[in-house]
């Protein structure tokens, strides 16, 4: 059957349309597509080639006729092809604008014409003119990054208020660094993609944190700059609040890192409050103000840039691991440790996370027993009477693990793997055996998640990485240390919140930039594959205020 649609009033040359027809015909969902202008000659060709649809009687030579042959009834092929056609036409339009040549414009309006998708104006012109341009950009519904400094405080407040009212963001003034949707804006670094969203009031602060994050093997989603005055009492953290909202709404961002000097007291309250409303872990560094607590709810307080990066990287690992695991919300935790101190630290961390006191007595090696959660030290004297220590003979733990097949209330099993001289030659073997037995007895909708930490080095006879490999092969999660293991555990047993639908920020998905000022910023964006037009800005009427005023009134 031939399905069809007409795109009115869009003239394209036949070569372009032939190329598009060929490309669209390759789509799996359909058999063949023919895309032609609705000229009389083309119409008879459509009829002769079996692509006719009566809809084409209405088409003029200025309309694109699209005929689709498809046996596929599951998919709305008209909608699919229509979308693909729009993309193809858009690509043509962009190619026509000059390939590798940097697009340039001398007026904001023509810059907008040359890059209709532009959603951010990067401004690095002289400060005295920057606010006016930023205001125009906001009026045209573009986000703004003000690299320029020497912008009046009153202007900053006004701009940020206007932006807030439109769900736009003003980064800056004096914002040196941002990375949005992979676009390097002004002073920026090439950082791997990850799940950490960074917000910073200082350019180099952002750069150092993201560099440390990369060094720790993690990556970022976005780095949003605020400008040094945003958290002052006068500005009130308007952009910080917007940035928090943006990253809250950004699904790819699982951890937030916030870097600034200590905010004004009144602003701090608001910022902290906004952070508490976000159901994602947030690492806050108010550089210079010593944090009183390391953690409050979802907030983690760091004292240095590298500490902020470290905590963020740890949380990032936990979050990215958690999303790969089944849900065990509200289930209990059982820790079966062979190492006494490991059991003790795990118990301490868990007690902390559950906000309960540690058990005072450790009868039968039970280090913690609260609300159904237990941490047990299997190296306790109770278990070693007449048998070797479980680090040598892990059969007792294997049995305990296997028994979990019948203990459906347990959702997370925590274990240690202690290797090295003196230890069992392959401690993972018995853990895997136990987990397999337990899992066999459990139904699919009652999963058991096993989280292991490995104590020992790469050079040990058992070899750390080989043990980890075996654990992973058996579906066992391996974390680098106990704090990470406990963070992950808590994350897994905590029910997910049903989140209300949030405001969306298209800026975070794709950035198209109008760059006003330093040409090199545009070149950097272009070489990173970001759509950009360079606005060769000059003051209106050469800076003649009288003529500029006349021009305003003669629009």
């Amino acid at each position, binding site marked *: 059957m031939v399905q069809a649609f007409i795109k009115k009033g869009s003239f394209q040359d036949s070569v372009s349309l032939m190329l598009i027809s060929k490309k669209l015909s390759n789509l799996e969902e359909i058999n063949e597509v023919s895309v032609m202008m609705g000229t009389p000659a083309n119409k008879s060709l459509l009829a002769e080639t079996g692509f006719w649809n009566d809809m084409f009687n209405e088409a003029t030579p200025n309309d694109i006729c699209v005929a689709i042959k498809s046996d596929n009834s599951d998919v709305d092929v008209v909608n699919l092809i229509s979308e693909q056609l729009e993309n193809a036409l858009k690509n043509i339009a962009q190619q026509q604008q000059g390939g590798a040549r940097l697009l340039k414009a001398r007026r904001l309006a023509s810059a907008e014409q040359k890059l209709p998708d532009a959603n951010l104006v990067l401004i690095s012109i002289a400060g005295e003119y920057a606010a006016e341009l930023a205001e125009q950009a906001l009026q045209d519904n573009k986000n703004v990054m003000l690299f320029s400094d020497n912008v009046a405080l009153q202007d900053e407040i006004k701009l940020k208020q206007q932006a807030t009212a439109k769900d736009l963001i003003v980064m800056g003034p004096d914002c040196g660094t941002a990375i949005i949707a992979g676009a390097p804006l002004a002073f920026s670094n090439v950082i791997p993609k990850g799940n950490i969203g960074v917000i910073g009031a200082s350019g180099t602060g952002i750069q150092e944190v993201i560099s440390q994050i990369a060094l720790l093997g993690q990556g970022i989603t976005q780095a949003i700059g605020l400008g040094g005055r945003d958290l002052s009492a006068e500005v009130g953290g308007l952009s910080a609040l917007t940035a928090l909202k943006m990253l809250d709404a950004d699904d790819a961002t699982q951890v937030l890192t916030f870097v600034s000097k200590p905010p004004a007291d009144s602003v701090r309250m608001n910022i902290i409050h906004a952070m508490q409303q976000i159901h994602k872990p947030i690492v806050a560094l108010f550089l210079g103000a010593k944090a009183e607590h390391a953690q409050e709810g979802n907030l983690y307080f760091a004292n240095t840039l590298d500490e902020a990066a470290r905590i963020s990287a740890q949380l990032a690992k936990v979050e990215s691991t958690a999303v790969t695991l089944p849900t065990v919300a509200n289930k209990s935790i059982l820790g079966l440790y062979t190492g006494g101190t490991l059991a003790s630290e795990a118990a301490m961390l868990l007690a902390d996370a559950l906000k309960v006191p540690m058990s005072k007595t450790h009868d039968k090696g039970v280090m913690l027993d609260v609300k159904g959660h237990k941490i047990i030290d299997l190296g306790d004297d109770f278990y070693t009477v007449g048998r070797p220590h479980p680090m040598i003979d892990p059969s007792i733990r294997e049995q305990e693990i296997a028994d979990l097949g019948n203990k459906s209330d347990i959702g997370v099993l925590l274990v240690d793997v202690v290797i090295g001289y003196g230890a069992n030659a392959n401690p993972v073997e018995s853990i895997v055996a136990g987990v397999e037995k337990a899992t066999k007895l459990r139904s699919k909708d009652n999963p058991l998640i096993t989280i292991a930490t490995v104590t020992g080095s790469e050079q040990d006879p058992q070899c750390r990485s080989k043990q980890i490999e075996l654990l992973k092969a058996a579906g066992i999660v391996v974390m680098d240390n106990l704090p990470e293991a406990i963070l992950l555990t808590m994350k897994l047993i905590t029910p997910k919140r049903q989140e209300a639908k949030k405001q969306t920020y298209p800026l975070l998905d794709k950035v198209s930039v109008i760059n006003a000022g330093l040409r090199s910023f545009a070149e950097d964006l272009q070489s990173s594959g970001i759509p950009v037009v360079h606005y060769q800005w*000059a003051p209106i009427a050469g800076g003649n205020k009288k003529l500029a005023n006349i021009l305003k009134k003669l629009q």
Partner: protein
Amino acid sequence: MYKSINEANQAIIDRIKEARPHWIGVIPAKEAVPTLQQGHKLLHAGPPMTWGDMTGPMKGACIGACLFEGWAKTEPEAVALLANHQVEFIPCHAVNSVGPMGGITSANMPMLVIENITHGNRAYCNLNEGIGKVMRFGAYSEEVLDRHRWMRDSLAPALNAAVKRFDKGVDLTALMAQAITMGDEFHQRNIAASALLLRTLSPKLALLDYDKAQMAKIFEFLSVTDQFFLNLAMAYCKAVMDSAATIKAGTIVTAMTRNGKDFGIKVSGLGDQWFTAPVNTPQGLFFTGYSQDEANPDMGDSAITETFGIGGAAMVAAPGVTRFVGAGGVEAALETSEEMSEIYLEHNPLFQIPSWNFQGCCLGLDVRRVVETGITPLINTGIAHKDAGIGQIGAGTVRAPLACFEKALEAYAKKMNITE
């Protein structure tokens, strides 16, 4: 009548797009411009001018015209006549006409008649004399005068007769739309249009009852005169812009011209008033033996092409001349046209430029855009020697001075009762 400047400008743009100038004949200037029939009067390029203010080439052309018309027998006689205010000067633009370089046109010189068949108005321009020693660049030797007599007596009647054989004359829009795809921008380069024109005329010329030698000379002249079409393009643009000016509102420039002293513009909403500023001197390439020091300041009505949106604004269409006119390579030509797009409101769908991804040439030069951006129109131009009688010594580009646009903007504001 129009609710806003933008609405008035739109009306102008619509009118420019609707205009269809046809070449309908060649007649003596005194018939095209009846005022030339009485007394000693000369048309000249640019805003109003006096003998004393004229630069060498325009003075030379005036001397040549006096000799051609028989008002004087010798050069000193002619100079005396001119210096004693015995000759009245009229800007071409004041009488629906245009003239390249000096633009000096006298009663018995032939003029092209261009009629905008959509709106009924006519525009006139003298005939191109070819290259070398020519009157438009100030030469007035016997050789120059001889050529003018031949043009008057032989070329003009033949062309007129040929053109009359077309129903409604020659449709210049169709011809120019083709020529722009062949590398013409109609100011510095008209070779494609001239060739197309000769192709169009040939079958009609062949039918004329002329002797072979006469006809051969006509064909010879048309076959080597690369810029023959320039004068048609100018009259074409003049016809369109005069029609646009009847809107009498809006901020679109309807004329740009230079007289060697001043650059003048007219603006649709400001009637017949000239807004002038001192002209710049063109920069470019010079024929062997000549240099920038000998260049005459900018001159001629040919900037009517840039007013319409071709010439320098359509540099990208004519990669062949970009280096000659000092605009660098193809990339620079593209940059120029992109820059010009900032001060024109639209693109003209009638003149699509292949090397510009088939964007139309610029359309609707807006005084506001010029003042806002500080970008002034770039004019492609020939360069005359500053002394009379030497002629063309090079070609290049020149910018319109910003001041005339600023003055026009202020006048517009005043007219609208806008104070700062």
